[in-house]
């Protein structure tokens, strides 16, 4: 992802606890409210909420915990998701729709349909993912908005 000349006007960070399905989704809904308060376009907000929610669920389901940091610049929403955990062995596969390594328990709860990363990529204008086996995953999403123009 290329760095732009514009710095963050505002930043927020959400800690994500592994395995906590009760609180899962809170980061996405808090971010949604912030973006609504900033008056961004509803479709932009929706894409940011979907990307954040799916990333949040990935951290809850697959990692040992992590955080989501969001920078809002004059023309973009930069979502950085970092977790410590087993990492993703085959990123290409993980980006295919329907591919999931979620456990049976998790699937029974209605999660782990293998749409997480594909949905995030679809919501993003820029998308990058790095993962180290045994260490964790770092996901960066950029969604452009025109509010600051």
């Amino acid at each position: 992802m290329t760095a732009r000349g514009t710095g963050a006007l505002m930043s927020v960070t959400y800690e994500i606890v592994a395995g906590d399905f009760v609180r899962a989704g809170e980061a996405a809904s808090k971010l949604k409210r912030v973006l609504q308060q900033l008056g961004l376009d509803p479709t932009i907000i929706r894409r940011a909420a979907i990307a954040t929610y799916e990333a949040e669920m990935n951290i809850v389901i697959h990692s040992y915990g992590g955080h989501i940091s969001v920078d809002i610049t004059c023309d973009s929403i930069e979502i950085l998701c970092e977790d410590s955990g087993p990492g993703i062995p085959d990123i290409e596969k993980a980006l295919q729709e329907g591919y999931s390594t979620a456990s049976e328990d998790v699937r029974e709860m209605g999660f782990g349909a293998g749409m997480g990363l594909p949905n995030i990529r679809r919501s993003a204008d820029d998308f990058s993912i790095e993962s180290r086996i045994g260490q964790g995953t770092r996901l960066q999403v950029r969604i452009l908005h025109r509010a600051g123009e």
Partner: protein
Amino acid sequence: MRLQPYFHSVTLDTDSCKGCTICIKRCPTEAIRVRHGKARILEIRCIDCGECIRTCPNHAKRAIADDFSLLDKYAYTVALPAPSFFGQFSGHDVTVGKILQALLALGFTSVYEVAEAAEHVSLATQRYVNNSIIRPLISSSCPAIVRLIQVRFPDLIDHLIPIQAPVDIAARFAKEMIMRKYGLRREEIGAFFITPCPAKVTAVKQPIGLESSWVDGAIPIADAYARVLRILPRLEDTPSLQQASAIGIHWGRASGEKYAIGADKTVAVDGIQAVIDVLSEIEIGKFHDIDFIECQACRGGCVGGPLTVQNPFLARVNMESLTQELPDKMSPEIVHEFEQRYSTGAYDLESDIEPRPILKLDDDFTKAIEKMELLEKTLDSLPGLDCGSCGSPSCQALAEDIVQGLATEGDCVFVLRDGVQSLAEELLDLARRVPGSISNEAETSPGGSLQESMDEPEIGEQEGSGT
């Protein structure tokens, strides 16, 4: 953007309001504040759902609606009873035909069941669901939900089915028929909805997606109920008046609409909080494999409306027994009429449903960011108890109000108490300072004198233990 002031059916009776703050927490759009001891409704936020009418222990929230005297203004009148109206009546000998006959006895020239129009809307919705690729599609029949989506979920407007609500269809079809039959002009006919809720009253006065409503007045079910009840036992059954099948009548209760649509994957949600939860989940991509969602602001559906009389659970039972003798399929005449009208676009909304976002801090993005920072800072200084004593529904809402200049930090009783406490400490500190000119201890510093005074209780204790 609408420039004239909003009309709201839900209003406040200032004399009855005690300023108790109960309503502010239940309002789904945070549209109420208590200021100077009285509730105030923020008009741009209110969606007329009537939650505050249900919640207020002092009955200070009221629905402004029309009354029977309005009938006198028209040469010809037609009653449009909501499907939920039938659920208000119980008893072995009560029939839909009798209830309709009662409305004629009350002075209406004719009746047209909104349930019949609901059957048309069901068929139109089926077509729309089959032809659209958007999922999930959300019913637009509950006006409180349409307004909730406008203000809190503007990104879901595309999911709303752009078909007119049954009452609007009913008023137009009834009037067109009367105009043809008797050669009357539209304005000579008064169409009156017997309504379960204030949201419908507002929808009539200020329609969404329509240039103007064909409905001329909305009379609360509670008002019509008493009059009908009085004359009902004297009336003969008039089955010829009744056109709708059980399918249309069941629109009056939760899941009735879902049942009438009959698509593959349908969901029915009732109660505004449950609807908010579902809409929030749709926003993050859930429910994408559901075809159709019925959303009702009131628990139990329209029979749970704030302007009804009967307990919604009993009303549901009443509807079940009333519909037992009715056909459980739409009549071929209705289906035929639908086919003819559908091709002319008779069911479509006339204009787009516009977003009305209420959370935006400022139209200018840079200013919104500045306000956001101030908001975060302000929120940190508040206790996070969401007690409502300040008159705003939560600390978050108070912080927003402060940033928008509608409140001050001193409105928070905890911030105020801390302020008073530190002021009192400072006063005490000042009071204990002895000016050097009158001090008899040469070395005493102001700090020393404070230390001395703080030791005093210990001296007292020693004295006490000596006795």
